């Protein structure tokens, strides 16, 4: 019998566990009654989770201990554009153009 790469176990376990999270309420806990407090809390899942995902990506420290300013400024500009336009494409364009311009203007 050919040996199976043990890393398939890693992939399989992560896949199973992730499906368990994704299906916890959609598939397995159908009709589960949630306490009122939890239901109210769910309304804040999008702002809280997305903010927790995005901020560390915008604030990155470089090897010399200083904050990567072009990244932060480009993020702030893109954030303002996202707020006003509520669109993904303008946000991506504003953020990338700003980052590339600042990198060109502020060479390391």
């Amino acid at each position, binding site marked *: 019998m050919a040996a199976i*790469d043990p*890393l*398939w176990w*890693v*992939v*399989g*376990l*992560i*896949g199973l*566990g*992730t*499906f368990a*999270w*994704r*299906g*916890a*309420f*959609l*598939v397995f*806990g*159908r*009709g*589960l009654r949630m306490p009122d*407090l*939890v239901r*109210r*809390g*769910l*309304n*804040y*899942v*999008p*702002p*809280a*989770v*997305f*903010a*927790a*995902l*995005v*901020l*560390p*990506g*915008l604030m990155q420290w470089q090897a010399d201990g200083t904050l990567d300013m072009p*990244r932060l400024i*480009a*993020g702030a500009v893109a*954030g303002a554009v*996202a*707020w006003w336009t*509520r*669109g*993904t*494409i303008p*946000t*991506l364009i504003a*953020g*990338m153009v700003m*980052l*590339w311009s600042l990198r060109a203007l502020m060479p390391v």
Partner: protein
Amino acid sequence: MSPRRQALAAGLKAVAPMVAAITPFGVTAGVAGLDAGLGPALTMGMSMIVFAGASQLASIQLIDAGAAVPLVVLTALIINLRMLMYSAHLAPHFHHLPLGWRSLMAYVLTDQAYALTISRVMTEDSNRFNHWFFLGVGIPLWVVWQLSTAFGYWAGTAMPPDWELGFIVPLIFLALLMMSINSRAGVIAAVVAGSLSVLGRGLPAGLGLTLAALAGIAAGVIAEGRRGGD
């Protein structure tokens, strides 16, 4: 156009910019698999079985660093814990569907699919075809994720790192974040979660993200209670 097709088309339209935006992210996952010596089957297998970008990148890095299996699995599952919250938020809107549908939806559930669908059901909850909207969002994301991972594995090293295309990932979440804020309490939830996430970035196994998100949710609920909801 039938209402079913209409919902599907609305999903496809909403997801189009997201699909373009996840491409560099998927390419990165493919390049990471190549660099870590995972081989094509494991790299593609991970994209198909796990289908969650941040956890894929983190686990490939840990595998490459020689971390023990339980640590790799635990880290990935903590990073993906947010899917549990998405599942809880979406479930009441779809519990009338048969098991097959709900399983398919769970499998293709991602940050983007959740964000677009939850804002749709907030305005069109009475629409009986919202699951077709979800599918219109989820399927293109899945297909492009597989294609871009494959492209990354076989051709991605040709992409110049100077372009900093990795910056697109926080930009996607920035757009999703701004679209999701619709109240003062939402702003407070975002500020608390965002700042704690930066402070907690040093915590092991992606714990910072989960704890920061939970604190932000609590802050939102408290803020809402104080003002009687707005």
